[in-house]
């Protein structure tokens, strides 16, 4: 009895040693930590650029830092991404360790040709997480983006990641998409994806030098740009800033942003958006698909550079109306761009209709591409101004002799 139990326990224990998943032993100093990767298309081959950390340079514990770059880059070309990854060992002394990747930059060329082929490896490889952000290199290659030296944050990939997360919170046009979200959008029937773009300001050649970060105002910087619209896995074009804002408003991605309104008597006034809530409702009217966008915005008065009486509730209400009008314009622009210019359902109207009227969606899903550009979109916007800051009327109107 007891012997039987012991034998069972022993065999289970032995089995557990061979029945493990994949694991591998490697020391910290035998691997290159990959933080940023870039994929471009050169001819019909993939060109992979890997931004890898030089740990000794980044963790500046040893007093004076040498003039070595905190990151280094390895490049490889191959007809598949996997091949390119493995080819990288020709130039890299250590195996590339991809679990900590923060950012993936896709060259605009590749994006316009279609990204689905490149994404499979990234989601299939067990070593890679699927929660890093993806950017499109606008008017340049992914390789160039990853080469720019950045101040404050020594690792360019980290800089991109951090400024993406910060500005997503405080500035409406940007939004982040991780690999997971991107794939989700790609496979959803009634939705096309968007991705944020990144541009290089200044001459990229200068940006590669360490000199670039020795200046207070670096000559070359990385800057987040507007959104790139996709149709399926193929990029079709860029949204303007207003359109990007409109897109994020519709998708409920805006957490906080700034809104500038003209005052009735000249001058300008800024609102700080605190909270937005949006909802897309799909439906059908006379056999044609419709969508209704409900948006609720809460805001504070942030800056008043004109003469306006904020103590009067009527003023506040008229400001709210103005702001509503501004939001509507942004959203209309975005919807128009999607419907007419790119014919890409980046908002997921199709999904919304499927969720609201599944049977109806079954009927129209085949020719959704025809229906989408002409579908009717209604807006339902409500802006509420909660507070006016620590002063009422601005002192701007009281300055003598102005």
């Amino acid at each position, binding site marked *: 009895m007891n012997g039987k139990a012991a034998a069972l326990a022993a065999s289970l224990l032995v089995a557990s040693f061979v029945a493990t998943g994949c694991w591998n032993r490697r020391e910290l100093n035998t691997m290159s930590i990959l933080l940023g990767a870039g994929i471009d298309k050169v001819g019909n081959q993939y060109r992979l650029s890997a931004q890898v950390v030089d740990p000794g340079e980044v*963790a500046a514990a040893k007093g004076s830092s040498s003039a070595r770059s905190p990151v280094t880059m390895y490049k490889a070309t191959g007809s598949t991404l996997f091949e390119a990854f493995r080819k990288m060992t020709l130039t890299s002394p250590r195996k590339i*360790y991809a679990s900590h990747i923060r950012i993936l930059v896709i060259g605009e060329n590749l994006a316009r040709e279609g990204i689905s082929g490149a994404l499979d490896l990234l989601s299939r490889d067990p070593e890679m997480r699927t929660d890093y952000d993806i950017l499109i290199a606008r008017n340049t290659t992914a390789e160039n983006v990853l080469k720019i030296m950045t101040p404050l944050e020594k690792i360019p990939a980290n800089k991109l990641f951090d400024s993406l997360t910060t500005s997503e919170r405080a500035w409406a046009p940007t939004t982040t998409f991780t690999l997971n979200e991107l794939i989700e959008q790609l496979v959803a029937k009634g939705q096309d994806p968007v991705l944020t773009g990144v541009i290089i300001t200044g001459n990229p050649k200068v940006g590669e030098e360490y000199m670039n970060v020795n200046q207070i105002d670096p000559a070359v910087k990385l800057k987040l740009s507007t959104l790139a619209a996709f149709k399926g896995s193929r990029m079709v074009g860029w949204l303007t800033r207003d359109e990007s804002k409109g897109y994020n408003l519709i998708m409920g991605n805006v957490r906080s942003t700034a809104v500038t309104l003209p005052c009735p008597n000249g001058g300008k006034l800024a609102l700080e958006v605190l909270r937005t809530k949006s909802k897309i409702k799909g439906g059908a009217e006379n056999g044609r698909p419709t969508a209704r966008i409900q948006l609720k915005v809460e805001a504070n008065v942030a800056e008043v550079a004109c003469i306006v009486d904020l103590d009067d509730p009527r003023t506040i209400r008229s400001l709210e109306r103005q702001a509503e009008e501004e939001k509507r314009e942004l959203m209309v622009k975005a919807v128009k761009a999607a419907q007419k210019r790119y014919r890409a359902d980046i908002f997921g109207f199709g999904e919304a209709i499927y969720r609201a009227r599944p049977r109806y969606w079954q009927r129209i899903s085949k020719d959704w591409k025809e229906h989408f550009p002409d579908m009717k979109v209604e807006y339902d916007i409500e802006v509420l101004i909660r507070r006016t800051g620590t002063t009422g009327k601005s002192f701007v109107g009281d300055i003598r002799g102005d």
Partner: protein
Amino acid sequence: MKTARLQPAVERFLGALGHSPDLIVRQLLWRGSLPIAVLYMEGMADSQTLLEAVLIPLSSGIGDKRIPDDSGDAELERLASEVLRAGDLALVDDFDVMLDRLLAGQAIVLAEGSSRGIRVNVAGMEERSVSEPLTQTVVRGPLEAFTENMQTNVALIRRRIRSPHLWIEAREIGKVTKTAVSILYLSNIAGASLVEEVRRRLDAIDIDGILESGYIEEFIQEKTFTPFPTVYNSERPDSVAAGLLEGRVAVLVNGTPFVLLVPGLFVHFFQSAEDYAQRSDISTLIRLLRYLSFLIALFAPSMYIAVTTFHQELLPTSLLINLASQREGVPFPAFIEALLMEITYEILREAGIRMPRTVGQAVSIVGTLVIGQAAVQAGIISAVMVIIVSITAISSYVMPAGSMSISVRMLRFAFMALAASFGLFGILLGLFGLSFHLCKLSSFGVPYMTPLAPFFAADQKDTLFRYPWPRMIARPSRMNSKNPVRQKSAGNGGKKH
């Protein structure tokens, strides 16, 4: 009737002890006529007591009338009952008993014409006085510790428990050393089966010498092979008294200040005397801290090895880069590095205990160089490893019972090896094995992990937590004590639990 001569009897003692010079024979004439001899061991009998109890009374009868030759036996009885002034004396017939008592420090009085002798307890040797405990120190609580003398130790406990139910059973263990061993228990609290089991295990010991309670511990502990201590030891009378009140049984061994308490369960090794002397809230927090340190001492190096060599994805990116930069240029794998440092530390520790006090400074200076900045600067050890080893070392001293930290020290290396070969998976396997082992272990019939497994809800009041005294109504039920109620409470009228 055959008259026993004095001289051959004295010669017999001298012969039995090989004419050892510390056997003192004082011959004198009782009332000027009857030759008698007083025998004692120098240094074991207290000379002042000997003088007052034996020598002065015996010499006071000088010059009296002559005693007949054949009345030696009667005179000896008279000496015992009228002359000698001692609390503990008796007439002894047997030579072996006399020899035994003589070696225990008593004086033996022999007389011409008698084959018997009187043993007079004048034992009193030089000994250490009661002082502060060197281990298990507390900030608040009694500052007395046991000494090497068992009588003193028994008195220290009795002074704390003035109850007729504090029963003591004496044993002599060791065929050569004849070491006095006592079993102490509260007859109205300790479970009868437990006491019987202790008796049985003590009586089964067959060894020539017992010099420390550790000898006894190894004989009476569980037969299961285990790195964990199943017998608790303490040099604090208050801890032992508290154990007796819980229904445990104490074993005192003459010649050592370390008293054994059985059963010794896992949770006992995390309880300090101070827990009960200070406020319950802080005691609870500190006790949780001890369990945390136990885990750190056991797992810190192995976790570090597992995470840095197998599961780098578990670390935040910036921490990973930081660790990676420290490991740049370190020539050893993390496991070897950790092993190197842990062994160095163990060497230092051992040297620290064993070295002569006078070279202490030299060892500590060299030690800080070996485990420290110099090793890091030389590039053979990473700075994190120094931190890991240090926190491990410090954590292992948080446990109030030294015997548990010894188990942790040993197991740590096993876990490091597991982590180096299988990562966190290996640690988990080891933890499974350890849990199985701990749950299977028992001490004197009580499962080792009681009251956690098997779980006793009522006993949780003094396990991870330490409830305020007014709320600890019941004694720990794990001891199967005869009298489970500690205090009558207004709330439950003194009912069981």
